[in-house]
C-alpha cells in the first residue's frame, strides 16, 4: 500500500474515534437522543474492509454504523447532522444514529433489526447477478446476529445461488450483555459458514492491515468465483453496547486488557516502526481531524431542523 493510502487509513480511524467521542459528549448534553451505539475499539474493522473495496462494491451494516458511514466517504458534517436529527443529515434527520446511508457512496445503511439486513444484502447480490455485473456486496453484522434465523436463510441462499456477498461477522465477544459462548453453539462463528460449505477465514480486527489483507483476498475470491465468502473478524467494543449500558456483564479488567490493544495505537506503532511517517506527521493528522470534527459539530448545530411538513415526505415514491 502506498504511503498516502496508509496515512489515509490512519486519518479515517482517528476521524471515527473523534466523531464518536464528540457524539458521546453531545449525547450526554441531551443534543442527541434515541439509541447510539459507538464503534470505538472496532475502527480497524470497517476501515480495513472498506479500503479493500472498489467503489462499485456495496456496503450494508447494522446500527453500529457511524464508522462504516465515514469509511464509505459520507462527510463528517452529515454524520454529525444526522446524529443531531438535522435536515442536513444524510437521512434528513429521520434516521438518526442507527440509520445512516448514502446511495451515492454505495453505503446502504445502518439497520436496526438484528440480522434483518442480511437477506437484503443477499438481495443486492441477486440484483447484481441479474444485471450480470460482478459487484460485490459487503455485509457486516455482529456475533449476536448469527443466532437469528435471518442469518441462516441468507447464508444458505447466497451459497445455493452463487451470490457475490462478502459476509463479515464482527465478533466483539458480546451481543448486548450476552457473550458469544452463552448465546452461540459454536464460538468460532465461521464454523456456521462451514456448515453451508462456504469458504471462510478469520482476521485480527484490531489490526487494520490484517483486516485489509483478508478483505482483499476475500473480495478477489467472491468476484472471480461468483461465490459468497465468510470473514470472521475478532474485535471488541471499548464502550457499552449503547449509551447508558450498565455493563454488569463484563469485568473492567477484561475491558482494560482489550483497550491495551487499541487499533489506533497498534496502527500508529506500525506506521512509526515502518517509518512510513514521523510522530509529528501523525500528530498533524490528528490535529486536522480535530478541526474537521469541530467544524462538523458546528455545521450540525447550526443546521436547520427538518420542516414540519417533511413529516409526510418520503413515505412513498409515487
Amino acid at each position, binding site marked *: 500500500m502506498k504511503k498516502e493510502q496508509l496515512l489515509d487509513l490512519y486519518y479515517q480511524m482517528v476521524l471515527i474515534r473523534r466523531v464518536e467521542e464528540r457524539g458521546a459528549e453531545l449525547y450526554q448534553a441531551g443534543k442527541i437522543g434515541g439509541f447510539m451505539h459507538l464503534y470505538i475499539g472496532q475502527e480497524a474493522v470497517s476501515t480495513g474492509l472498506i479500503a479493500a473495496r472498489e467503489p462499485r462494491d456495496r456496503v450494508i451494516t447494522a446500527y453500529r454504523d457511524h464508522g462504516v458511514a465515514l469509511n464509505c466517504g459520507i462527510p463528517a458534517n452529515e454524520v454529525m447532522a444526522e446524529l443531531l*436529527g438535522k435536515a442536513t443529515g444524510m437521512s434528513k*434527520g429521520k434516521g438518526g444514529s442507527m440509520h445512516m446511508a448514502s446511495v451515492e457512496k454505495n453505503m446502504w445503511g445502518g439497520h436496526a433489526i438484528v440480522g434483518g439486513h442480511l437477506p437484503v444484502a443477499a438481495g443486492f447480490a441477486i440484483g447484481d447477478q441479474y444485471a450480470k455485473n460482478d459487484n460485490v456486496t459487503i455485509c457486516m453484522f455482529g456475533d*449476536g446476529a448469527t443466532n437469528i434465523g435471518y442469518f441462516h436463510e441468507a447464508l444458505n441462499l447466497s451459497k445455493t445461488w452463487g451470490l457475490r456477498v462478502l459476509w463479515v461477522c464482527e465478533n466483539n465477544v458480546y451481543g448486548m450483555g450476552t457473550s458469544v459462548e452463552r448465546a452461540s453453539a459454536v464460538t468460532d462463528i465461521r464454523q456456521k459458514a462451514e456448515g453451508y460449505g462456504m469458504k471462510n477465514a478469520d482476521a485480527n480486527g484490531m489490526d487494520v492491515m490484517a483486516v485489509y489483507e483478508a478483505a482483499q483476498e476475500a473480495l478477489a475470491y467472491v468476484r472471480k468465483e461468483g461465490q459468497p465468502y465468510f470473514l470472521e473478524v475478532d474485535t471488541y467494543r471499548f464502550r457499552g453496547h449503547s449509551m447508558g449500558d450498565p455493563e454488569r*456483564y463484563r469485568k473492567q479488567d477484561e475491558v482494560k486488557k482489550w483497550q491495551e490493544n487499541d487499533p489506533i495505537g497498534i496502527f500508529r506503532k506500525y506506521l512509526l516502526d515502518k517509518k512510513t511517517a514521523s510522530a509529528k506527521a501523525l500528530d498533524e493528522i490528528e490535529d486536522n481531524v480535530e478541526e474537521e470534527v469541530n467544524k462538523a459539530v458546528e455545521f450540525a448545530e447550526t443546521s436547520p431542523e427538518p420542516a414540519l411538513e417533511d413529516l409526510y415526505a418520503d413515505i412513498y415514491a409515487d
Partner: protein
Amino acid sequence: MAKITMREAISQALMEEMDRDPAVFIMGEEVGVWGGTYAVTKGFYDKYGPDRIKDTPIAENAIIGGAIGAAMVGQRPIAELMTINFAFSAMDYIVNQAAKLRYMFGGQFTLPLVIRAVGGGGRQLGATHSQTPDAIFAHFPGLKVVSPGTPEDAKGLLKSAIRSNDPILFIEHATMYQVRGEVPDGEYTIPIGKSKIQREGGDLTIVTYCKGLELSMKAAEQLSKEGIEAEIVDLRTLRPLDMEPVLESFKKTNRAIVVEEGWKSYGVGSEIVSRIYEEAFDYVDAPIIRVAQKEVPLPYNRTLEQAALPQVADIVAAAKEVLR
C-alpha cells in the same frame, strides 16, 4: 395501599407468580445477567438462577416458538420480547401457532403462555423501534391482548395472565415505567377482558388504554378547568374486548372520542367507533372522533416525532369538537 412505579408493579407480579408456581419461568434477551433492558427483571437472575431466568440468543422465533412448546407440555413460560417491534420477527409463532394450535386440534392443546413486550414511541428510536402495533395483534382470535395503563392494573392483570391457560400478549409502554400509582397491599388479581372507568364525568366519554390513558387523564384535568367533565373508559384488554362500560358511558354522555397511540387507520379506535355505531346508534349525538398517531413511520427527529404522536392538546381539541 402503596404507591409504586409501573416497573415495580410488573416486577412484583412476576416475582409473586414465580414464587407461587414453580412451573413459571422467564425466557428472553437480556432478562438475566443484564437485569432486563428496562430493568424489570433486575435481581431475578441472582434470586432464581439460570434455570428460571433464561437469557436467550437473539432468536425471536426460538423465544416464542420455544415458549409455545414448553407451555404445551405443561410449563408456564413468560417469553419476553425486548420490544414489540421484534414480534414481527416472530410473527408466525404468534399468529399461526400461539393463536391457533388449540382450536385447530380440537382443544387438545393448552398454551399457558405470556408474551411480555414493550411498545410505544416517543424515545427517538426511529421507525422500526417505536411502534405501537397493538391493533394488529388484537386482530387474531385465539390470542388475548392486554395493555394496562396503571401500576395497579399492570400488576393485577399480569398475575392473571400468568395464571391463565391461554396465550396472552402483554403490552407495556416504554415511556411509562416511571409512572406511579397506588396498588392494593397484599395479594390481588384483576380479571382479563374487563374494561374500567378510570374517571367519572358526564359530558363526554373518552375511550382509551395504556399510554392513551396517561394522556387522557391529563386532558381531562384541563377540560375540567373549563367546566367539561370527561368520563374515561380504560379498555385494559384489547381482546377479548369488553364494550359494556364503553356503551354504558356512551349512553349517558352521547359523545365520545377514542384515544390510542397507534396509527388511526384500521386501529383500535376504528373498532371501538364501529361497535358504538353498531350497538348504540340511537344514542349518538355527534360524530365520534379518533385521536391517534399520524399516518407516518415515526421519525428520529424529536420535533417531528412529537408532531406525529397524539398529544394532550389533540385530545382536548377533539373533546371540544365533539361537544360543539
